[in-house]
C-alpha cells in the first residue's frame, strides 16, 4: 500500500478522482473551480520547491501576469480563449525565465529574498501602469470562454472546462517530473555540486524549471481571471505568492498531487471556517506552526502514515522517521 502511494499513475488517478469527487461534495462550482486552479498553481510551485529545491516567493508574479495577459488579450484582440491560453503560457514562461535567470544566481535565503523583491516590484509595476491593469479596481469584464457559441456562464459548465485543462496540465507536469529532465532536477536538489561536477548545466536546468512553472502558473491565473470575471490587483500581490507557497507546503513537497491536496484543504477549510468565525486566520496560523513542528511532510505525509499503519498494523516505522523531507523522492 505504501509502495502504491509512490506511483505517479496513482497520483494521476487521485487527481482525476478529485475532479470527479468535488462536484459531489461541494455545492459551489466556483469553489470547485478555484480548487483546481489553485491546485494547478500549487503543483507548479512544487515543481520548484519539491523537485528543484527552490523556495520561490514569486509565484504570484506569474499568476497575476497570467490574469492580466488573459484579460487584455480577451478584451482587446477578441481572440477565443483557446487561442489566448497558449499566448498566456508564453508570457508566463518568458517572465519566469527572466525572473528565474536573475534569482538563481543566489542560493538559500538570498534566493528567497530576491524572489520576494521581484514579487513586490511586479506588484508596484501593475499598480503604476493602471492604464493597462486597471490599477486598484482591477481589469474588469474579463469574459468566460465560449463553447459552441455560448459563454460558459454556469459555474459547473466552467468547472468542466477547467477540469479538462487541469488534468491535461497535471499530466504534463507529471511527465516533466518523470522525464530525464525531472530526475536531473532531483539530482540538482539533492547535491548541486555533484550534479554540476558530473557536467549537468545546473543553471540552465533551474531556469527551465522556472519557465515551466511560470507557464503553468500563468495559465492558472488566466483561468482564475475568467472564473471571477476580473483580473484583480490582488492576484499579483505578495499575498498570492505566500498563499501558493502555504498551499504547497501544507500538501507536502513529496509529489504533485500533494499540492492539489494542499490547495483543496486550504480553500475548503477557509471557506468553512470563515463562515463560522471571522478570526479564522488565527487557526490557520496555529496550523502552520504545527505543520512546521510536527508534520513536515504535510497532509501527504499523514496519508502515508495512515497507509503504513493500515498495512503494518502500526508496527512499522512512520514515513517521517524513514525520510527527512530533504531526502524524500517524489
Amino acid at each position: 500500500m505504501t509502495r502504491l502511494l509512490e506511483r505517479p499513475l496513482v497520483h494521476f488517478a487521485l487527481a482525476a478522482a478529485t475532479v470527479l469527487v468535488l462536484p459531489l461534495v461541494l455545492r459551489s462550482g466556483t469553489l470547485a473551480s478555484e480548487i483546481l486552479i489553485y491546485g494547478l498553481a500549487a503543483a507548479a510551485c512544487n515543481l520548484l520547491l519539491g523537485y528543484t529545491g527552490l523556495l520561490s516567493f514569486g509565484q504570484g508574479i506569474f499568476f497575476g501576469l497570467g490574469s492580466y495577459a488573459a484579460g487584455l488579450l480577451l478584451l482587446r484582440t477578441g481572440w477565443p480563449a483557446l487561442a489566448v491560453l497558449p499566448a498566456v503560457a508564453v508570457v508566463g514562461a518568458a517572465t519566469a525565465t527572466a525572473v528565474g535567470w536573475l534569482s538563481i544566481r543566489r542560493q538559500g535565503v538570498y534566493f528567497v529574498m530576491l524572489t520576494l523583491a521581484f514579487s513586490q516590484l511586479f506588484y508596484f509595476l501593475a499598480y503604476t501602469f493602471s492604464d493597462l491593469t486597471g490599477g486598484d479596481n482591477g481589469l474588469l469584464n474579463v469574459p468566460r470562454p465560449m463553447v459552441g457559441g455560448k459563454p460558459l456562464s454556469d459555474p459547473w459548465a466552467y468547472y468542466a472546462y477547467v477540469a479538462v485543462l487541469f488534468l491535461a496540465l497535471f499530466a504534463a507536469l507529471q511527465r516533466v517530473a518523470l522525464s530525464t529532465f525531472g530526475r536531473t532536477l532531483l539530482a540538482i536538489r539533492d547535491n548541486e555540486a555533484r550534479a554540476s561536477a558530473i557536467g549537468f548545466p545546473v543553471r540552465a536546468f533551474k531556469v527551465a524549471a522556472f519557465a515551466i512553472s511560470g507557464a503553468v502558473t500563468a495559465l492558472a491565473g488566466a483561468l482564475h481571471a475568467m472564473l471571477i470575471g476580473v483580473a484583480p490587483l490582488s492576484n499579483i500581490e505578495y499575498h498570492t505568492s505566500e498563499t501558493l507557497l502555504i498551499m504547497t507546503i501544507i500538501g507536502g513537497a513529496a509529489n504533485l498531487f500533494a499540492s492539489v491536496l494542499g490547495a483543496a484543504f486550504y480553500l475548503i477549510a477557509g471557506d468553512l471556517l470563515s463562515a463560522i468565525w471571522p478570526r479564522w486566520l488565527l487557526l490557520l496560523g496555529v496550523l502552520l506552526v504545527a505543520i512546521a513542528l510536527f508534520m513536515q511532510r504535510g497532509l501527504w505525509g499523514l496519508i502515508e502514515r495512515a497507509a503504513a499503519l493500515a498495512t503494518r498494523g502500526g508496527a512499522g516505522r512512520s514515513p517521517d522517521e524513514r525520510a527527512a523531507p530533504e531526502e524524500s523522492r517524489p
Partner: protein
Amino acid sequence: MTYLFQILNGIGLGMLYFLLAVGLSVIFGLLQFVNFAHGAFYMLGAYLAYEMVGRGVSFWLALPLACLAVAALAALTEAALLRRIYAQAHTFHILATVGLALAVQEIVIIVWGPIGGNLPPPDSLSGVVILGDFVYPEYRLFVIALTAILAAGLWWLLEGTRLGAIVRAGSESPEDMALLGYDTRRINTAVFGLGAGLAGLAGALAAPIRGVDPFMSVEALSVAFVVVVIGGMGSYVGALAAGIAVGVAQSLMTTLWPEGARLMIYLGMAAVIVMRPRGLFGRA
C-alpha cells in the same frame, strides 16, 4: 533647502528602520533563521505601549516595559517553539513564523479590535521645533536622539563585550562555541529575545508617530527585509547604513518621484542581491 530638510527627515525615519531591522539581522546572522514574525513583535511593542499609556502609565515607563515584555515573550516563543526547527530547511522557518505572525495579528484584533488607535506623544514632547520656514516635531527629534544612543550602546554590546564576541563567533561557527563550553541554546534565546525586544521598542517608539493598527506588522516586516538585505544579513553596520539610506531615499523620493518610491526601493533591493549578495556591509 527642501532637499536638505528631506534628508534630515529621512535620517529620522531611517533610525527607526534601523532599530526595527537590526534585530532581524542579528537573529539571522547568529541563527541562520529567517524570521517572518519580526513585524509581529514590532506590533506587540506598539500595542503594549498603547495599552499601558491608555491605563495611565507614564509613556517613559511604558517604553522600557513594552520593550522588555516583548523580549520576554519572544524568548519564551524561541525556547518553546522555534528552537526545534532551526535544523530544518528554511521552508519550515518561514512557515512557522508566517503562522506565528498571522496568529499574533488575529489575537491583536480579538484583544484590541480591528480599528486602530492613537497614542499621543508625551506632553513634554508634543511641540515643534521651528527652523526658519520649517518645523519639525520635537517627538521625532527625540526618537532620532534616543535611537542614536541605542545604536551606540548596541555597537558596544556587539563589538565590545564578551556577549558580542560570543555572538559573532557563534554566527561563524556554532560548533566551536559548543566545544568551548558555551551553552549555545541559552545564547540563542537571549539573542532572539534581544532582537525581538528592539523591534518591540521600535514599535512603541513609532506608535505616537503612526498610531497602532492590527496590520502594521506586515508593513514593518517588508521594510525590515529591505533594510536587512541591502545592509547585509547579520551586519550591524549594514543595518544602520541601509536603514538610513532607505529612510533618506524614501523621504527624497516624495519630492522627486513619489509614485516610484516603492518601485525604486525594491529595485534597489533586487540589484543589491544580484550584484552584492552579502549586502553592502555583509561579512563575506
